[in-house]
């Protein structure tokens, strides 16, 4: 059996220089992640960080005072700016004077959106009753959590690599020879599914690790020990785990759903016997509900395979029980699909 699994692994990963394709895909994915994983906010992350650094260095009891002062300063400058504009339009000041004033306001004007974000967070988190939380760095984590959506690269990989696992037999015409051998049905199918699941799990882990590594390179992991509730306010019913633990849990769920996807692809390959048809069917089954989420009831979106694959099952579900039920449901479906596949042999 292990010999057959090795052969299938060879066909999936090494035959026809597929390893080269994996390296290229992995490289593109990493490059893409590096340049697109960013703090997606409407202000300069640099200024936001400056404020964070100032607040970090300020003793906690003085932070409120600092924020109040900065708020007043910025408001005064904004007000002065409005006055300057009015003076210019009323010919009270010349154009040169107007330009000089406006230049002096530029810095404050530029800082205002970032400060407002700081102020909003400060006010929001100050209302929370308990523990000492480092609220201000959460934008970095948000950048990662925001990025950990549906991985189209991984989906494409799954379709390109897993579909030929069974369809390759039909397309090259070797199936009549294989199906009459002693191990050509049950054992071979088991070996193929095992190899597909194993490859999918490994690649899924690789891709998730790449996201984390790139996040670490860009932002560092200093704040991953914080409770997840500090960055996901919707998760107040969730057990008190750290962001790092949450990310690990999310990765495990993602890998489980990728395994589910690999099994679905295998079953569809056997049923449809055509690589193109299978690719379309899988894309339709997985992507359509995900892409048409506005047309479907919310609860379906929240527990769908797409939600599992995108890693948003936990964050969307709000209710841990619903998320766990969704995972159990999909795992049962996966086992059933595997069983149907087995029976077809």
């Amino acid at each position, binding site marked *: 059996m292990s010999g*057959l699994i090795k052969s299938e692994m060879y066909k999936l990963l090494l035959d026809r220089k597929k390893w080269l394709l994996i390296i290229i895909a992995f490289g593109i994915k990493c490059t893409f992640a590096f340049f697109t994983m960013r703090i997606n906010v409407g202000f300069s992350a640099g200024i936001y960080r400056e404020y964070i650094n100032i607040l970090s260095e300020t003793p906690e009891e003085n932070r409120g005072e600092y924020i109040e002062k900065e708020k007043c300063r910025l408001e005064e400058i904004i007000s002065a700016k409005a006055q300057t504009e009015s003076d210019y339009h009323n010919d009270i000041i010349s154009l040169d004077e107007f330009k000089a004033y406006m230049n002096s306001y530029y810095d404050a004007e530029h800082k205002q959106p970032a400060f407002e974000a700081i102020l909003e967070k400060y006010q929001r988190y100050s209302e929370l009753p308990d523990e000492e939380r480092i609220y201000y760095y959460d934008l970095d984590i948000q950048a990662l959590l925001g990025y950990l959506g549906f991985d189209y690269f991984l989906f494409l990989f799954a379709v390109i690599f897993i579909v030929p696992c069974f369809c390759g037999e039909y397309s*090259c*015409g070797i199936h009549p*020879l*294989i199906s*009459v051998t*002693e*191990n050509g049905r049950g054992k071979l199918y088991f070996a193929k599914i095992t190899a597909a699941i194993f490859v999918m799990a490994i690649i899924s882990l690789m891709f998730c690790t790449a996201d984390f590594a790139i996040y670490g390179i860009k932002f560092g992991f200093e704040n991953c020990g914080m409770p997840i509730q500090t960055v996901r306010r919707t998760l107040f019913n969730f057990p008190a785990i750290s962001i790092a633990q949450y990310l690990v849990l999310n990765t495990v769920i993602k890998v489980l759903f990728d395994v589910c996807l690999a099994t679905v692809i295998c079953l569809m390959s056997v049923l449809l016997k055509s690589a193109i048809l299978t690719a379309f069917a899988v894309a339709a089954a997985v992507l359509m509900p995900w892409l048409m989420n506005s047309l479907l009831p919310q609860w379906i979106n929240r527990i769908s395979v797409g939600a599992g694959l995108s890693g948003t099952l936990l964050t969307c579900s709000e209710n841990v029980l619903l998320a766990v039920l969704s995972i159990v449901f999909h795992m049962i479906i996966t086992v059933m699909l595997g069983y149907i596949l087995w029976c077809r042999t």
Partner: protein
Amino acid sequence: MELRFDSVTKKYGKKLALDGFTLTLNEGVYALLGPNGAGKTTLMNCITDRIRPTSGAVFWNGEDTRKMGARFRAKLGYLPQSFGLYPSFTAKQMMEYFSKLKNVRNAAEETTRLLELVNLTEDANCKVGGFSGGMLRRLGIAIALLGAPEVLILDEPTAGLDPKERIRFCNLINEISENRIVIFATHIVSDVEAIAKEAVLLRGGKIILSGDLQTLINSVYEKVWLSDQPNSDEALQNDFRISNINKTENGVSLRIVSDGKPFDNAVRTTPSLDDVYLYYFAETAEEENERTD
């Protein structure tokens, strides 16, 4: 060693591909002879359990082969009429892969021996994608022979082989026919003469005749005639089953298969297997019209 077909019937919609096929085969080489659509490939698919008969069963030493499942497949070697192999695999890799599928213990030795047997030793490390049709078929034969199968099923094994390869293949089948049942389907009568111990004539999914080759030939004894005619026009060819036309100084010499004396000058001659095929499978224009009506 006994392979028994018990009223094997296969229907595709209303069409009967196999109609109560009943036969018992023991050790030896058997040819399945019949025109296209006679049910040869359907029968082979039933043996290899690639299709399920509508009724009836195939038994190996008294045990239902469908119930035996993998145990029966372990005894099978199969060369389909058309097949492909992984183009990026070398011949050796392909043999190793099938060794795993067939649980062959001494895979390396078997691979070397069989590739030599089919004259592919020099191409063992060449990719299958670059093989010619003949080479692919020879590799298919080597794969079929892996694991020393007790039942060897060959569907049109010589199709696509050049004459030299065909002769080589026929000799090969003769060499390996001991201690196993070899069933091969073909259109080529000379292959049957070269290889088979017995032949089964199939038409419309039914056995119309079976037995050793001499029995088959005897069945058309006194039905093969030679007759000299001034020409062999189309009307003549439509009216009689003509197995051979030789030009002579005065016209043509016809070899005719017919129940009765076709011409006054016709004389009986010794029948051959070609005549048997022609007698049972070639239709005169009149018969064809009757069948169509």
